[in-house]
C-alpha cells in the first residue's frame, strides 16, 4: 500500500456550543473549531497503517481558509501532505455537493485507501464517506473500528451495536472510521513546528478540480437537500433486554407490551 488519503472536516466543537436564548439557534462565534472526532480517528488509523506499511498519508478537506489549522493539526500528528479544497464555488454544499467536490479532488491524487470519518458532529448525516466511494466507483466499508494489513489484504473490523464483522478487502477501498473505538494520538511538539515550518498546506481552488466534476453538482446550487425543520430528538430510552427465554415466551412478552401501549 503506497498512498492513503484521509478526508477530514473542521467542525465547531459542539460540546462548547451554546444556544442563543432569544433565537434558539447555535451561537457559533468564539466556538473553538476542531477536527471532527470520527475523522481524527481516521487519521489515527491511517497513521497506524503508515507505521506498518510505510505508506504516504495525505489529509484532504473541503472548507474555508480557516480549516488550515485543522490541516496543520493533521500534519502535526504525522500526516505527510495536506490538501485544502477551498473556494466560493463550494460554499453552501450539502452532502451530495460536498462528496462531489471531494471526489473531484481525489481524482487528482494517487490512492490505494481512502479513510473518512463515519459522520460529522455538526451535520450527523454519515452520507459523505459512502457517497465519495460511489462517485469514485470503489467499494466502501463503514463503521470501521480497526484495520490490519496482511500483505495486500486489509482486515477490517466493522462494528454494529451488538456485534462486529471481520472483513477481508483489497484496495482501492474507502473506509469510514468510528471515533469511539480509536484513540487518536497527540500531535508531537516537533510535528507542530514542522507543520508550520517545513510543510505546506496545498490549497486547491475550483480551477484545480473543474475537469473532474459537473459544476451543477457543486455549492448551494448543486445541493438537492432542503432543510425542512430542525428539532431536538427525543431521548431514546435504553429499552429492556429479555434474555434466555423461549420463542413462545418472547412472543407473549412482545404481545403484552404492545397491548400495554395500546398499539394493538
Amino acid at each position, binding site marked *: 500500500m503506497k498512498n492513503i488519503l484521509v478526508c477530514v472536516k473542521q467542525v465547531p466543537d459542539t460540546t462548547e456550543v451554546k444556544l442563543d436564548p432569544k433565537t434558539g439557534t447555535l451561537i457559533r462565534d468564539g466556538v473553538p473549531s476542531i477536527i471532527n472526532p470520527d475523522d481524527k480517528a481516521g487519521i489515527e488509523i491511517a497513521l497506524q497503517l503508515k507505521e506498518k506499511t510505510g505508506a504516504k498519508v495525505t489529509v484532504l478537506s473541503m472548507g474555508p481558509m480557516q480549516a488550515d489549522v485543522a490541516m496543520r493539526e493533521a500534519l502535526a500528528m504525522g500526516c505527510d501532505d495536506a490538501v485544502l479544497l477551498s473556494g466560493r464555488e463550494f460554499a453552501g454544499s450539502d452532502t451530495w455537493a460536498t462528496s462531489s467536490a471531494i471526489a473531484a479532488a481525489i481524482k487528482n491524487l494517487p490512492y490505494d485507501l481512502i479513510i473518512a470519518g463515519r459522520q460529522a458532529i455538526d451535520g450527523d448525516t454519515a452520507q459523505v464517506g459512502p457517497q465519495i466511494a460511489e462517485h469514485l466507483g470503489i467499494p466502501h466499508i463503514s463503521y470501521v473500528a480497526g484495520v490490519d494489513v496482511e500483505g495486500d489484504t486489509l482486515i477490517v473490523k466493522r462494528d454494529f451495536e451488538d456485534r462486529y464483522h471481520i472483513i477481508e478487502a483489497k484496495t482501492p477501498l474507502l473506509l469510514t472510521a468510528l471515533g469511539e473505538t480509536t484513540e487518536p494520538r*497527540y500531535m508531537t*511538539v516537533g510535528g*507542530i513546528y514542522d507543520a508550520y*515550518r517545513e510543510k505546506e498546506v496545498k490549497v486547491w481552488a475550483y480551477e484545480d478540480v473543474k475537469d473532474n466534476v459537473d459544476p451543477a453538482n457543486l455549492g448551494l446550487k448543486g445541493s438537492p437537500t432542503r432543510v425542512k425543520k430542525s428539532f431536538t430528538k427525543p431521548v431514546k430510552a435504553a429499552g429492556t433486554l429479555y434474555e434466555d427465554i423461549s420463542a413462545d415466551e418472547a412472543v407473549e412478552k412482545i404481545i403484552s407490551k404492545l397491548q400495554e401501549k395500546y398499539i394493538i
Partner: protein
Amino acid sequence: MDFNLSKEHLLLQEMYRSFAENEVKPLAEEVDEEERFPVETVKKMAKNGMMGIPFPKEYGGQGGDVLGYAMCVEELSKVCGTTGVIVSAHTSLCGAPIYENGTEAQKQKYLIPLAKGEKLGAFGLTEPGAGTDASGQQTKAVLEGDHYVLNGSKIFITNAGYADIFIIFAMTDKSKGTRGISAFIVERDFPGFSVGKHEKKMGIKGSSTCELIMENCIVPKENLLGAEGRGFGIAMKTLDGGRIGIAAQALGLGEGAVEEAVKYTKERTQFGRRISQFQNTQFQLADMHTQMEAAKLLVYKAACKKEAKQPYTMDAAMAKLFAADAAMAVTTKAVQLFGGYGYTREYPVERMMRDAKITEIYEGTSEVQRMVISANLGVN
C-alpha cells in the same frame, strides 16, 4: 511589537493543554498524596516530544524555540507543579548546559538520549554549605591520569531519584575560588556515585528531591564539561535559562489557581447569591488575573530574548522574581476564596499554594534575583 501568539504557538498551546488535561491532571492529586514520581507521565511526554523541545532535531530534540518550551512547562504546571518542574529541570538544567557547552562527542552521547526523553537529567550544584552562596563548593575533583575522582555531596537535587545523567559541579582548584570550579557529566552508574535520601517537602511532593553522594566517584576525563575552571560560569549561565523554566512553572501554578477560583466562586452560594457576585470577590479575582497576566508577559519576553540570542539574564531574573511572588500571592488568595473547602485536600488550591512556595526559593531565591537585577541596573 505583536503580543499575539503565532499560529504555531497557539497549536502548541492546544496540544499542551490537551495533554495536561487528559494525562497529567487526573494523576495530580495522587502524585502529591503519595509523593510519587509520575514515571508513566514522563514516558508519555517523551513520546510526544516534550522532553527535548528547544534542542535541534540532529540532537534528538524537537527543533523548537524557548517560548514553545516555556509554554509547555506553563501548561503542565497549571494542573501539576510536580510535572512542570520535571520537564524544566531536565531540559534547562541538564540538556541545555550540554547543548551550550558540550563537545560534539558529549552531545552525541548524552544530549541525544536526554532530548529524546530516553534518559532523565538533573543538575547538582547545591551543597549543604553552598546554597545561595554557590561559590562555596566543597565537592572536590582531582585529576588522576585518564579520569577525575570526585568526593563530596549535593542536596536538594531535583529528579535525582530517577535521573540517569547529572551535571555535577566540583572544585578542581581551591586556590582559584570560583574560577577553580569545574563541571562534569556524571552517569548514575559511575563507580562511587549514589543517590541518597528523598527529601520530604512542603510541595511539589512528586518531584524526586534527593541527596547525591560521591565517594571516590570515577568520572572519565572526557566527561569534563567545558574547560577546567569554567564550571561556575557554566552554572550561572545555565541557571539564567533555568529561571525561565521556573518562572513558567510559577506562571502556570498561578494561572491554574485563578481558573479554579473563578470556577468555584461562580458556583458557591452564600447569603442567597453566588459569591462571585460580591464585589470583594470580583476585585480579588481581577487583581489575581492581572498579576498573572503581567507575569506572563515577563516570562514570554525573557523566553523570546533568549531565543533571539539577546542578553536575557535580567529579563529571566525579573520574570522569575515576579512570577514566583505572584504565584505565591495568587494561590494563597485562591485558598482564601475557597474558604474552608480550599483548606482541604479535596480541592487542588492548597496543593497549588504549597507548590508555589518553592518557586520563590529554588534556582535562585527571590533575593538572588534581586541581586541579579540590581547588578544589571548597575547599582551593586
